[in-house]
């Protein structure tokens, strides 16, 4: 693997070097695919979003402002492409939030050792609340974007977020 940094590769992409785009793709497409897959069950839609993401990287590499991680920038493009694609599809069933698996008893014990209670608290959230926490905190989406991703109104995102916060606070303080 070449030792070029993501930034070097992105600069080369901005200059029209498609081998650099290929290198970026090889580095970032796998995790992006998996991560988007956890937010949308339709593999074709995920692959389309990944494709659109790297096309946007190709065309917009010169516009990258140079702050932060290239990986985070790519994620920001990827998740928004996925949301756009979900929005074009129109109203739909909310995603089954079954992507996460409940931890085994052994893991629950280990969690307490590794993370304190936070991990356990997160895992004990209902799938709907967890999805909202994931979208707004981890994925760094706005309430509106989170609503589009999850197929629920923005107001519901807000109320679920409030419920999740209340539940977590209660568990962590008790």
């Amino acid at each position, binding site marked *: 693997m070449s030792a070029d940094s993501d930034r070097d590769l992105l600069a080369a992409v901005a200059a029209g070097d498609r081998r650099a785009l290929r290198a970026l793709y090889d580095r970032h497409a796998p*995790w992006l695919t998996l991560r988007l897959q956890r937010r949308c069950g339709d593999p074709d839609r995920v692959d389309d979003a990944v494709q659109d993401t790297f096309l946007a990287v190709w065309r917009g590499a010169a516009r990258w402002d140079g702050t932060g991680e290239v990986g985070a920038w790519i994620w920001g493009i990827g998740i928004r492409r996925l949301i756009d694609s979900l929005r074009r599809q129109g109203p739909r069933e909310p995603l089954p939030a079954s992507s996460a698996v409940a931890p085994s008893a052994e893991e629950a014990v280990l969690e307490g050792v590794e993370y304190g209670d936070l991990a356990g608290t997160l895992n004990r959230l209902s799938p709907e609340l967890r999805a909202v926490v994931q979208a707004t905190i981890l994925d760094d989406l706005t309430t509106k974007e989170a609503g589009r991703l999850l197929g629920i109104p923005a107001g519901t995102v807000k109320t679920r977020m409030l419920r999740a916060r209340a539940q977590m606070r209660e568990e962590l303080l008790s």
Partner: protein
Amino acid sequence: MSVHLEHEWLERYARGELDQARSFSVEAHLPACEPCRAAIAGLVDAGRLSRTWDAIDLAIDAPVPGPVERLLRRAGVPEPTARLLALTPSLRPSWLLAVAVVLAFGAVAADWRGETGLMAFLLVAPLLPLAGVAVAYGPHVDPAHEVAVAAPAGTLRVLLLRTVAVVVATTTLAAVAAATLPGFEWTAAAWLVPSLGLTLAALGLATSTGAAAACAVVAATWVCAVLAAWRVGDDPLTAFGSFGQLACLLAALAGAALVIARRDTFETRSQA
């Protein structure tokens, strides 16, 4: 980052079997950590990734349709035809804009200067499609013409296709301009037959001289004829009377006959 993720976590994450809290850490860690990204890359279906890359690779190269091509596609023109038309110099937005400007000037002149102004408008309107046809297709506008001649699509077919498109586009603009002319009901049509006559006559002549020269000759003939008719008839609009219209119709028929009879000349080079 100095601390990396356990491979077992990555495997379970890739299979979608890792619990939510750990998935959070994995997702927060991956975008910035090259070794862990490399580790997880091996866990994603390589065929799937390479199919997506192929699509990206092709999308990078695929020509992006311009406004004219998108318009034609929306009007139901098949993709390859729309593409061939969109590459016509005289169908570019800039060309059509220039045509519109000329017509607007003509309409304004007709409004101000009465019959003489109207004559100027009627003189110019048929020349616009002719100019468009002159630069529609051929060795002088297509640098790859020699390759194009050896292609099965056929030079004449492409030329006619583009001619029709150019004539339709420019006459539509001319019709819009003519509709703004006040008080001359019959003038709305007085340039239509000359347009057709000049274009077809030029195509017919192009069988022996090439399109650019043919258009120049026809344009010059047209201007001289209109001015001469004015002198003889003592009326600026003499050329657009029934005799003039008939002459244009005959020119159109003669041009069409020439094109059909000598269509072979378009399909090979006449000179070394």
